[in-house]
């Protein structure tokens, strides 16, 4: 019984991590209708920035995390203004080709600068190991992930639903022309949202180095996972991707534990079943836009 809870706990942590990594993509793909396959590259940037700060410059881990967010967001902002902006109106194929090209460039660049072997971030001792909670093994690091990601999710939902910026964003997405007519600066809203999504990916990348491993191939290896989260979750809100991430995280961990031989197939099976049942994802809009 206690094992069940440990598995559940690990699954939730994994799912939360997937959510933080992928929710930026849910925003660009779902809200802005832009296919950004290079999303993982921003996550990798955040991871490497955190690794360099902690390992080489001796920053404390918790100070490096926000900086990973800020730096990735800044990179995202710059790229949005210089490159992405020109592709909003282009076809999806153009967007795919552009962003996949960006992925390969980022892989080669990191490989050249940092080398191709895996990078680890030196963690404070307080985050290492596991403790027992009524017989359930709780990993400290995974607990921290759940706490951080949980808070983030709540904050995101509040921003989208309650703040003026949130309503502007929703308006800009629902009907850009009307939004512009009402005096909303739509390109600015999109730029800011894009940067925020990149920042979240960067934070996710920094957090995931310990669990998923960080190497130059990160954006390619995890692209599929991000896309699964977004397709399964649907793209109308962030609740969908959130639930999808949890479902996939728990499904993946439990599947690998209980049926190790079938382990790698479990999340794909979940995906196929859900997409047959609801082709637009769990919380998708009925009409494709």
């Amino acid at each position, binding site marked *: 019984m206690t094992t069940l809870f440990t598995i559940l706990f690990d699954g939730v942590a*994994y799912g939360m991590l997937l959510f933080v990594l992928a929710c930026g993509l849910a925003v660009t793909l779902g809200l802005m209708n832009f296919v950004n396959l290079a999303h993982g590259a921003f996550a990798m940037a955040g991871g490497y920035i955190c690794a360099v700060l902690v390992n080489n410059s001796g920053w404390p881990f918790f100070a490096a995390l926000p900086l990973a967010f800020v730096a990735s967001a800044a990179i995202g902002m710059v790229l949005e203004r210089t490159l992405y902006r020109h592709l909003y109106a282009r076809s999806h194929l153009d967007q795919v080709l552009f962003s996949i090209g960006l992925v390969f460039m980022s892989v080669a660049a990191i490989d050249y600068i940092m080398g191709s*072997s*895996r990078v680890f971030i030196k963690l404070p001792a307080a985050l290492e190991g596991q403790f027992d909670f009524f017989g359930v093994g709780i990993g400290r690091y995974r607990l921290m992930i759940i706490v951080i990601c949980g808070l983030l999710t709540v904050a995101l939902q509040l921003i989208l639903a309650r703040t003026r910026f949130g309503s502007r964003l929703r308006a800009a997405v629902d009907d850009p022309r009307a939004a512009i007519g009402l005096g909303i600066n739509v390109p600015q809203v999109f730029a800011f949202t894009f940067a925020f999504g990149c920042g979240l990916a960067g934070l996710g990348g920094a957090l995931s180095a310990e*669990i998923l491993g960080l190497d130059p191939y990160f954006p390619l290896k995890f692209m599929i996972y991000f896309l699964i989260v977004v397709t399964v979750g649907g793209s109308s809100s962030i609740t969908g991707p959130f639930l999808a991430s949890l479902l996939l995280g728990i499904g*993946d961990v439990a599947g690998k534990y209980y049926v*190790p031989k079938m*382990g790698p197939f479990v999340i794909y099976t979940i995906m196929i079943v859900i997409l047959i049942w609801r082709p637009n994802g769990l919380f998708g809009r009925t009409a494709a836009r």
Partner: protein
Amino acid sequence: MFVRRQVLLAAGAVAAAAAAVPACAQEEAVKIGLIVPMTGGQASTGRQIDNAIKLYMQQKGDTVAGKKIEIILRDDAAVPDNTKRLAQELIVNEKVNIIAGFGVTPAALAAAPLATQAKVPEIVMAAGTSIITERSPYVVRTSFTLPQSSTIIGDWAAKNGIKKVATLTSDYAPGNDALASFKEHFVAGGGEIVEEVKVPLANPDFAPFLQRMKDSKPDAMFVFVPAGQGGNFMKQYAERGLDKSGIRVIGPGDVMDDDLLNNMGDAALGAVTAHLYSAAHPSQINKEFVAAYKKAFNNRPGFMAVGGYDGIHLIYEALKKTGGDATGDKLIAAMKGMKWESPRGPISIDPETRDIVQNIYIRKVEKVDGELYNVEFATFEAVKDPGKTKK
């Protein structure tokens, strides 16, 4: 930034070597096509082999038996399709006399038919699946085979109070090789396998598999993951508290590659593995080798580096024996049965199988001068590849 410095150093070394040899080599050169992964997940293998060969040629000069040795380096990123194409280009266009390297088993297998057809020796310096040398009469191996180390650790575990073992191996040919030979010897020695998990090769998270290991409460867990994943594995092993629940790590030495060992942290302490080489091997030759390697590349050599170092040595010695004749059949004949003292210890090439015969050492991870090393404490002498002696 470390890498950039290394590249500069290496580039400097090459430039120096080029400058040292005037263009008087009008004698035809012996060309060696070196195909290793220099990019991608297996890049550390390629870099080590390349480094070791550069070091050897710096130490021994680049001329042997009147022939100038020329290395043509190609990167296959460990993708067998690339390996095959590159091998073909090297043999047909560059007219190389020898192909060498091969970071992973599928790469070595992809090149084997070409070696047979062109009668070009294929020196395998890294890949470790047993069958490779059987695929062509022109394959000679200077690395190791996984059954070599896995059977030994199986015997050792059964004799040293380990009764129940859970296994965790990567699901591809070398992993299955390691598992099969370990199992056979451990069970024959009276041990019991309580849990058997194969993890996918591209595996992001070990957590669920490790939890399964923990719940099956073994005395030790047998682990084989490819060289690059060892660090990630040990981190999660410690995170899950397996080190504290008394489950020891045993296995072939790939997990505890010297290349990565020192970054694994104290969780690796006490892990017992069987392998062909440790940077802490206490021989004079090895001390000199490690010192020279560290000086040149600012890093510790791992077993892949030794595979490359011995591989180029084998080529040099074979050329000496044939008096500079680089035809494939003569080189292979010269290589068969060759014996020498390597940094890893005494080794030889089995004249029947063209595979390496070497000592396998049982080692334990300990702290030496503040760094983690595999310290050898038992030796099994002149081990042939058990994958072949069976037949």
